[in-house]
């Protein structure tokens, strides 16, 4: 197939989103199946792109309108993007299934539209090769995320959405300032070209621009203290949306941040920015874990935990050795799997038993054994027990950080992990060893399959991480090896 078909990854959700009003005429019941269908197709395309990239070993460069960059906007689906687009598609597909049960608030057609736009935005953020395009996709993601956060229309939802809007608005404004600075000094918006020209840039401007870009994206990527919107948004948004936030929306922001920062590898500003990311990441881990400690709302607890894990990934990127980036990307993948499972299961419990508060989880092992089992596996995995997937990435990450002598940071992170163990095991204890009077609930087959699938994935990666590890290494190289990135993009006027 022509690699240019990969543009369907962007096109399909976009058009499908605008088709929703038409579909609505066929009846409201059709909308969610339609959504499922679209995400399924998207998954197929993503899988195809994934296969294509990993078999040929070359990235797919999609040139919009056939213009060569930097004149035209290009999509760059490298190893990392291919992997992540697949994850986005798969998680979205699962979430459409989940939505059938989880979403009962009208208007369902708007939900479907926003859902698709969110998926589109995240895909775009990861796949694009142009910084302004990145901004646009980020805004698409953000606006659909704002809307989805407030989708439930309760006071809490509106409040969370409002917080998200205000903070996100400030962030994106400054991001745009950064873009303006970049454009002003380099005259280009293409990432590859920026990377090429970065070393010739005025260091002060580069530093300022980079700082502003990082600032803007850090709001999306939930780095402390720019993450204040996150727990509220996670808690208030519909359950499938929470899953998507945690699994890929945030990670897309982080990815964008890291991609941009790594473009400036050869500039003097680079080390400073890395230190900034390291500090922010560590703070995020520590504050996130500590905040989760005494939460009674499990969903909020998971939100904080998710924030902390993002901080960990950020630390990995901040260390910025090849090993650390490998580990960070691995952690991204693992975390996406585990948090998808956790939020899915917790959301399912919340739907079934009415609330995601800790009371619902008491005796869950008797009420909903499979769900409880899934949460348990997820929790154990997050805590970092060997034979579960997160252990490998965490272990690798910390070793990589120690390798460059960041002992203090590692000690802080490990201390925070202890805290993490406490609240997760309190949850596990509540689920399995505390009594409750409620009766056993029949568990939904589709969810059970999804959860078991994810559980199996967690354990398989945990026991035999080899295949995923190889994928992840390639993806990380794609992210880290900027020279290769420049080479792969067919820039106009630059002979390869």
């Amino acid at each position: 197939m022509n690699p240019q078909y990969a543009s369907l990854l962007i096109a399909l959700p976009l058009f499908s989103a605008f088709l929703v009003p038409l579909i609505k005429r066929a009846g409201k019941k059709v909308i969610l199946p339609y959504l499922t269908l679209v995400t399924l197709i998207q998954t197929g395309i993503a899988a195809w792109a994934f296969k294509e990239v990993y078999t040929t070993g070359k990235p797919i460069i999609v040139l919009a309108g056939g213009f060569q960059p930097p004149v035209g906007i290009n999509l760059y689906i490298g190893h990392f993007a291919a992997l992540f687009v697949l994850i986005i598609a798969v998680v979205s597909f699962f979430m459409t299934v989940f939505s059938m049960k989880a979403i009962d608030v009208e208007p369902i057609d708007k939900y479907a539209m926003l859902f698709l736009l969110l998926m589109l935005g995240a895909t775009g953020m990861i796949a694009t090769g142009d910084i302004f395009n990145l901004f646009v996709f980020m805004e698409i993601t953000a606006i659909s995320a704002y809307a989805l956060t407030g989708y439930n229309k309760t006071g809490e939802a509106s409040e969370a959405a409002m917080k998200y809007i205000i903070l996100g608005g400030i962030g994106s404004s400054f991001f745009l300032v950064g873009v303006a600075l970049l454009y002003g000094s380099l005259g280009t918006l293409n990432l590859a070209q920026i990377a090429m020209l970065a070393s010739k840039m005025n260091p002060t401007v580069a530093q300022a621009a980079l700082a502003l870009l990082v600032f803007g994206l850090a709001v999306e990527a939930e780095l402390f203290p720019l993450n204040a919107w996150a727990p509220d948004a996670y808690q208030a948004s519909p359950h499938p949306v929470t899953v998507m936030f945690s699994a890929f929306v945030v990670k897309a922001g982080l990815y964008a941040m890291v991609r941009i920062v790594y473009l400036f590898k050869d500039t003097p500003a680079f080390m400073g920015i890395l230190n900034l990311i390291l500090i922010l990441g560590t703070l995020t881990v520590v504050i996130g874990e500590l905040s989760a400690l005494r939460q009674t709302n499990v969903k909020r607890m998971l939100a904080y935990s998710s924030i902390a894990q993002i901080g960990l990934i950020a630390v990995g990127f901040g260390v910025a050795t090849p090993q650390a980036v490998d580990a960070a990307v691995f952690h991204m993948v693992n975390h996406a799997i585990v948090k998808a499972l956790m939020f899915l299961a917790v959301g399912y419990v919340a739907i079934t038993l009415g609330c995601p508060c800790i009371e619902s989880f008491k005796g869950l092992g008797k009420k909903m054994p499979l769900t409880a089992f899934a949460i348990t596996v997820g929790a154990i995995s997050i805590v970092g027990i060997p034979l579960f997937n997160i252990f490998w990435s965490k272990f690798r990450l910390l070793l990589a950080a120690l390798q460059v002598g960041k002992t203090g940071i590692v000690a802080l992170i490990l201390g925070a992990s202890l805290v993490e163990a406490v609240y997760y095991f309190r949850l596990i204890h509540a689920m399995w060893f505390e009594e409750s009077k409620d009766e056993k609930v029949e568990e939904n087959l589709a969810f059970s399959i999804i959860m078991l699938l994810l559980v199996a994935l967690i354990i398989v990666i945990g026991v035999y991480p080899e295949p995923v590890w190889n994928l992840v290494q390639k993806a990380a190289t794609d992210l880290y090896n900027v020279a290769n990135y420049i080479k792969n993009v067919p820039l106009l006027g630059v002979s390869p």
Partner: protein
Amino acid sequence: MISAYYFGAISLILIGLYAILTKRNLLKILVGLSIMETGVNLLLISVGYVSGRTAPILTEGATPQTAVDPIPQALVLTAIVIGVATTALALTVAINLYEKYKTLDIEKIRGLRG
């Protein structure tokens, strides 16, 4: 001359920020947000502005040499659209909030915390 634009743009951004940071009324904050966005847009435009040139519209007598850089203007158009969308959404949410909390005082809308 060009520094005046920059100065203006940055002033707008700071004014917007000031509004966000100090005003307790939600609507005022949203106004601040809009002002800030405007400031950013202005900045973006100023980046591409070359003193004495015309708009980059293909009309009689306009050549690339006489026009300013068109790309920032394209960008700003997009940014404005996005800004409008955001503002619209924010106002919707604000209405919703007022219905639920019966106030627009941001200090009182603190249901989610801790």
